[in-house]
């Protein structure tokens, strides 16, 4: 089957590894990701903080392009892009005037027909159907991930259908368990890492991350797993700084969910760019004899 695909800017830059992994994992599950043509930046949180019109209009252009593909569903792996796109679609569905104003500027008009999905929405049913197990060649034994969802997968600034439990989502746990991993129960799975605050309000962001990391360590996790490139980057790239400042003992690799699925499927770790993490992500896999 084919799904429309919106990678977003991160997956074309510092989180390119996530783009590579998504294509590999989805491909193996028989899903071809069709990147939508000439997509633009969704505006992320910056648009919402500076300009209400652009916050809706930028994702709207992508929605118009996605509608024109004729495909029924678009998958957006980045939590921020997913959130902004879903919010834009919802807002336009109840504001015909704004929709007309935006459509007037667009070649591909927004219809609002396409279903906007996050990555777990597409992957989770493949666990229930048995497709995931069928493709998995290895059991991820010994892996104890702290499944880290962050903010934008389950919390929205307006009423949209939330696809998992808001306060205690389970999508990643379901996938991890089906692959033989043993995810820890912990309290900070939906807490904020600070996102861009790591750049513009660093002390605040480090404090937020220290709470997340302290709990993951206390619960006995040996790695993190996430779906959001911003969460992944922050918890990975700033982990050493947080650890030194707040006295953490361990350094835990921060995997994308696609990395764990890919390893279970038997893909080559370097081919999936698992060696591009800030906190070494290859060592644990070797230690557990998963690669």
């Amino acid at each position: 089957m084919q799904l429309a695909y919106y990678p977003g800017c991160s997956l074309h830059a510092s989180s390119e590894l996530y783009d590579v992994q998504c294509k590999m994992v989805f491909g193996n599950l028989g899903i071809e990701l069709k990147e939508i043509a000439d997509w633009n930046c969704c505006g992320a949180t910056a648009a919402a903080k500076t300009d209400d019109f652009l916050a809706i209009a930028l994702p709207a252009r992508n929605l118009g392009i996605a509608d024109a593909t004729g495909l029924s569903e678009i998958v957006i792996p980045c939590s921020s892009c997913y959130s902004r796109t879903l919010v834009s679609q919802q807002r336009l569905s109840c504001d015909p005037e704004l929709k007309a104003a935006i459509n007037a500027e667009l070649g591909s008009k927004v219809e609002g027909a396409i279903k906007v999905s996050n990555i777990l929405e597409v992957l989770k049913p493949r666990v229930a159907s048995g497709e995931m197990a069928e493709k998995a060649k290895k059991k991820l034994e010994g892996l104890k991930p702290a499944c880290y969802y962050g903010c934008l997968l389950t919390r929205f600034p307006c009423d949209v259908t939330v696809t998992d439990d808001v306060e205690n989502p389970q999508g990643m746990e379901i996938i991890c368990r089906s692959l033989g991993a043993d995810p820890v129960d912990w309290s900070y799975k939906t807490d904020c890492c600070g996102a861009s605050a790591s750049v513009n309000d660093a002390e605040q962001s480090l404090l937020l991350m220290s709470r997340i990391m302290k709990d993951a360590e206390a619960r006995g996790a040996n790695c993190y797993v996430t779906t959001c490139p911003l969460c992944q980057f922050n918890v990975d790239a700033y982990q050493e700084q947080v650890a030194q400042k707040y006295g953490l003992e361990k350094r835990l690799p921060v995997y994308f969910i696609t990395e764990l699925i890919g390893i279970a499927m038997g893909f080559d770790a370097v081919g999936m760019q698992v060696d591009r993490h800030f906190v070494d992500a290859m060592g644990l896999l070797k230690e557990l004899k998963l690669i």
Partner: protein
Amino acid sequence: MSAKTLQYEAEGAQILLRGIMDKSGQNLLACYQCRRCAAGCPVGEETGVTPDRLIRLILLGDREEALNNLLVWKCVACYTCGTRCPNNIQTARITETLKQIAKEEHLEPLRPRIADFHSAFMKAAGHMGRFNEIEGMGIYEVKTAVKELKKGNVGAVIEEMKNQAKLGMKMMKKKRMHFKVDKVKNRTEIKALYRKAKAEKGA
């Protein structure tokens, strides 16, 4: 919070309240001060002003405090407050709105770096249609460096450059830095949306 005594002035308070309610789409009058938002706010301890207090400031018509408190700038838009609010008030939409008002009125933000980051992001996103990390970070760093230098804070600029250089080196080493410019072909449409956004504000 300021120690001044607020002179409540009904008409002014109404204008402020209505303006923010219209722009944010949030019914601030529904707030009954249960403080569930405050309990969940991840930056509340640092900002002092929690979402419930911010709503109160607006209801009391304290325009100056409503625009000049740390919550407006340090809010990370995690949407925890709004998700837990029993009356469905999304306070993050209110902090977003106040940031926009501050920008439209050219008020000096309490945390200029945060405001500058988001402006730089939007500038870079509008320029190529896609956000290129090097371009966006470049605009932001130059903007903040100029401001710090004007204030004579040479040390702060050097410290920031050191930190960013360190991160940049780490990114290079891990092949996370991308030098290829990613851009939208049909940038005419992006420019048109930016123009319309500007016109909407003027309206």
